[in-house]
């Protein structure tokens, strides 16, 4: 039996230490998904914590034939989508704040760091242009290399729905990038820079 399955069995018997091992193993994927979905560090921390707590309380429903990471990320994405839907009804919405200003530090930074921050902010600015149920498949596709089948399982969709959501989401991303470009916001410049740096 894999170490992960041993931890799960121990956590099921109420062993909190074993569950802590699972948190340590999966904290980065879960936190990253929450951050990409919500766009700011405070909410990402809170949502990632809540996702792990939900996983602990629902551990009995976990099907060991599935990948534990997929199950955990499924809980995280559902929770973040709910949270974003609730956010729409709040009077002061964090989404109204431009994320590329909300995230970047204002202190003077070395050039490399600055480029990294620009890239990160460009990514968040683009992702925030997507409705929550389009944002999640895009994040699962790009940051977790999930297949259509895995996205479909995580989001309780059919594979053809995933296909069409990714297609629609990509159209929206191109549109958002073009709009930002026309509005003089340097998202595209960052994208081009990133493309040069990455390619």
């Amino acid at each position, binding site marked *: 039996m894999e170490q992960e399955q041993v931890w799960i069995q121990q956590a099921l018997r109420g062993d909190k230490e074993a*569950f*802590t091992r699972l948190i340590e193993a999966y904290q*980065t994927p879960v936190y990253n998904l929450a951050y990409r979905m919500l766009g700011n*560090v405070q909410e990402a921390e809170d949502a990632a914590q809540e996702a792990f707590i939900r996983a602990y309380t629902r551990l009995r429903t976990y099907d060991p034939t599935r990948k534990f990471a997929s199950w955990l990320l499924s809980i995280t994405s559902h929770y973040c989508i709910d949270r974003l839907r609730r956010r729409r009804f709040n009077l002061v919405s964090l989404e109204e704040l431009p994320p590329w200003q909300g995230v970047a530090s204002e202190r003077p930074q070395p050039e490399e760091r600055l480029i990294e921050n620009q890239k990160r902010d460009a*990514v968040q600015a683009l992702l925030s242009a997507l409705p929550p149920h389009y944002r999640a498949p895009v994040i699962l596709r790009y940051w977790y290399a999930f297949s259509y089948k895995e996205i479909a399982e995580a989001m309780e969709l059919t594979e053809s729905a995933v296909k069409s959501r990714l297609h629609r989401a990509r159209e929206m991303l191109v549109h958002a990038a073009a709009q930002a470009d026309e509005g003089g916001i340097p998202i595209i*410049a960052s*994208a081009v820079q*990133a493309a040069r740096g990455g*390619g």
Partner: protein
Amino acid sequence: MMLKMRTSKPCPQFSERMSLALDHQLSAAEERELRDHLRTCNACRAQWDALQRIERLFTSTPLIAPPAGFAARVSARLVRRESRQPIVFGVLSLVVGTFILGFIALASVREITPSLYSLYLLVTTPAARHGLTVVTELLSLAESVLSALRLAIIACVRSPGVMVYLIYNLTVVVLTALWLRVLIGRLLRPVSVLRQA
């Protein structure tokens, strides 16, 4: 202009195909067809370039790790969450359990429902009175069940002797004692958990 990403709408029949191409879902023939089309259609090529730029931006951005001490903060939150549940459960069970036990014990002695009618004097708002009526009706329903039991007990007391009545009351006392034991255990556990934490 170099940064201009789209001049006009891409062709609908190739729009979804571009998305599929990015996910490596096209057959060799479909891919060749798309490439041929991109050579001749400016709108689709602009869309394809934009899609690829976004793809490169996303795939070159690494996963973000949480701030240090994340696992410890989740564990602490889990302990807090679990310790709160027994308190809520404890208080709820205290109220419900005491009520049910008291009802069972008293039902063998006297009628309880009529005493609730005196509460009508204290309650003035129509909504509260309606609530009280519902409670009273539920109680009298439960009491009719219990009065059958009471009559049975009284019949037993009259014929075979006082023993049955005593056994009944003893059962109530034992149930109450067991109940209090469970309750005290539940209420004290969170305190010990918090001490350990």
